[in-house]
């Protein structure tokens, strides 16, 4: 009832939502200095990709979308695990989680 004038856009609403969510995640990655918040917003971006896949599956009948969502969920979880393992190492070595400290490779 909200998008009556753009009735064609009615079932594209989750796609816009997914785009919005994706860019919120992107700002989180770009703007925050704390390593953990960056990992969290990365999870947010991957969740938005899932939502996008599902909405296009429903709109255009994209048969194998659930399988892609399945794989994205698994890889996102595994990646979060490894990212956090590295974050723990960074915290142990540099005593801070701020990515400013990780500039030792710069000469």
């Amino acid at each position, binding site marked *: 009832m909200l998008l009556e004038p753009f009735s064609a856009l009615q079932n594209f609403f989750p796609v816009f939502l997914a785009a919005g969510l994706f860019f919120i995640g992107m700002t989180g990655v770009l703007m*925050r200095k704390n390593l953990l918040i960056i990992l969290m917003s990365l999870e*947010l971006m991957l969740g938005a990709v899932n939502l996008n896949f599902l909405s296009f599956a429903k709109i255009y009948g994209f048969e194998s979308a659930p399988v892609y969502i399945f794989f994205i969920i698994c890889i996102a979880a595994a990646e979060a695990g490894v990212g956090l393992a590295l974050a723990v190492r960074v915290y142990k070595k540099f005593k801070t*989680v701020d990515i400013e400290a990780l500039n030792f490779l710069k000469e």
Partner: protein
Amino acid sequence: METFLFYIFSAGLLLTAFNTIFCRNPAKGALNLALSMILLAGLFFLMSAPFLAGLQLIIYAGAVMVLFVMVLMLFNLKNELFVFFKKRAWIWTVFLFGLCSGLISLMAFSSPPRENPSYSFLEGKQIALKLFTEYLLIFEMIGLLLLVIAIGVVVLSRLDKEE
């Protein structure tokens, strides 16, 4: 009634997504992200994909979030000062979002969606039939990936014992 719920969930999702980024204490960010993952599972549910919603709930809200909260407790972070890395990132976001929504609306008006869609491919059994017939190779690769990560994480977290 369902669409009304749909709008509530998406509004809640955007709100918690903002909170995960703009909160001072990372632990509160983790809890906000957990809430947004639960709302995302609710959205999947509303889009008639209950099996995927259940998976999302188990993996994201159940496992990933507990990991984040555990790690944040390990670090015992004080409320860090509200530190932003770069101010210009905001402009990028708004610009790209505008561009993206333009493209989507272009696509929406150009190609009409399918008429009477049958969403049978969202149930558990159909996913399995497609997963194990067409995407068998990727399935094996993910099995190997998980094994490598399991071993890597253990080795990674044991390095300090030798030091």
